[in-house]
């Protein structure tokens, strides 16, 4: 395959992958929703879960986006330094978004700041947002596609706390935001928390926490324990599906951390809605691929 051919194959593949991820929730999310839905016993919660499952089925049958808000598209890229198409990724992702917007179709969501014009094709200044991580000495690439909808982006927040506010301050910060903004963000939510020394690191880690599969745990035993405690605590608020009350509030709580400064504890919060459109694809050097987030997916 020559370079132009490989580039076109890459664009086409990512366009189809992005299209697919708007219409199908990942395996772990579907399993979790089923588990949470089965546990509900109130009429209201059951009605909401039934609507959600009907929607998931119809999206699949009619080949349409699960939620109309297909978000501002974000790609989290882990690229091997030897991946042959490394130079083409950034431009290729922008082209893929334009293509996916047409074929899916996705909702045009990129509004240029100051001009206040919707670009109409989901491409704009620095959008799709691309986050880069380098994988030394590898020749493949892993790309997460995440559709950051408005509803679940709205609770996003970050703050630098003083150390004497302690981890108590972190926990309180999270609960205050979930009981106010979170209830309108299409629960059951996936809650991402970043803890670090400065605000942008905490915020970014909170979003990366949302990419972790459900059921995974923080790498530090205390971190894992805190995830479990916050998850239990939020579920004990009984926010329920759609914020209309019910047994559970969240699909999970994920924390990611970076070493902090002695004088600061920064905390970031991102939330994912029940329609958590996070997909992961691995592409090898010869353009072979595997959709890791959706087992057996044909794209």
């Amino acid at each position, binding site marked *: 395959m020559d370079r132009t051919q490989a580039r076109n194959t890459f664009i086409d593949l990512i366009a189809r992958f992005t299209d697919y991820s708007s219409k199908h929730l990942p395996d772990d999310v579907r399993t979790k929703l089923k588990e949470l839905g089965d546990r509900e016993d109130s009429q*209201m919660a059951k*009605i*909401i879960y039934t*609507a*959600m499952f*009907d*929607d998931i089925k*119809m*999206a699949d049958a*009619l080949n*349409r*986006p*699960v*939620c*109309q*808000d*297909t978000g501002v598209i974000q790609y989290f890229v882990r690229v091997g330094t030897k991946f042959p198409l490394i130079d083409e990724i950034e431009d290729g992702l922008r082209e893929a978004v334009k293509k996916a917007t047409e074929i899916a*179709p*996705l*909702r*045009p969501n990129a*509004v240029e700041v100051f001009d206040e*014009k*919707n670009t*109409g094709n989901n491409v704009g200044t620095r959008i799709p947002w691309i986050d880069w991580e380098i994988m030394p000495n590898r020749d493949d690439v892993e790309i997460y596609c995440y559709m950051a909808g*408005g*509803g679940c982006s*709205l609770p996003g927040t970050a703050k630098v706390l003083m150390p004497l506010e*302690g*981890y*108590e301050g*972190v*926990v*309180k910060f999270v*609960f205050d935001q979930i*009981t*106010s903004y979170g*209830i*309108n*963000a*299409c629960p059951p939510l996936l809650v991402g928390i970043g803890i670090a020394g400065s605000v942008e690191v905490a915020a970014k880690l909170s979003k990366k926490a949302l990419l972790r599969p459900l059921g995974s745990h923080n790498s530090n035993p*205390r971190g894992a*324990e*805190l995830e479990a*405690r*916050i998850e239990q*605590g*939020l579920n*004990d*608020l*009984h*926010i329920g*599906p*759609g*914020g*209309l*009350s019910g047994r559970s509030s969240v699909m999970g709580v994920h924390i990611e951390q970076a070493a902090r400064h002695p004088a600061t504890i920064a905390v970031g919060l991102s939330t994912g*809605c*029940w*329609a958590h459109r996070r997909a992961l694809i691995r592409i090898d050097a010869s353009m072979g691929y595997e959709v890791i987030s959706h087992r057996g997916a044909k794209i």
Partner: protein
Amino acid sequence: MSKIVLQTPISDADIESLSVGDIIYLDGHLVTARDDVHHRLLKQERALPVDLAGKAIFHAGPIMKKIQEKPGRYEVVSIGPTTSMRMEAYEKEFIRRTGLKLIVGKGGMGPQTTEGCRIYKAIHAVFPGGCAVLAATCVEDVESVEWLDLGMPEAMWILRVKEFGPLIVSIDTKGNNLFEKNRRAFEAQKDVVLEEICRHVDYFG
């Protein structure tokens, strides 16, 4: 219990008997109106291109597709509700100016909208968030579109719907607010939960 189906035009009497938590459906006209439409009417003082008296608005920004063989006509692909709280500062005045009777959205709205609903006789109801394909299947026709210069999500899409729902009444005409009531319960429980967690998180050496 029989299915409650509201039909546009909606009268005060149609909604005065409804209470928060009731589940209803809608037949008739539903018009999308979200941030920019509220801003144009109330901040920029531009007249709305659609008469909303007795009608229902939908806080929603749909995915629409042009129908190839019918120029200027659209079909709806996905249309779920958006976060209603964003319109809280404007909604009371929006109700007063337009005479609308039903606001469909997602999540709760605040005290100003609750007051607007009580004074001018209107209700707010939620469609299950994210269920955009389900909602699209309740749309019979996209009759027209106005203010498309605002972009697809912000334009006013005039829809004819059939048994559009389930819609859960979240603010009624009597001053009740379901989400506000729920939020108070969550807040009260929050203090208990926080106290327990905070007993375990002193990681300082």
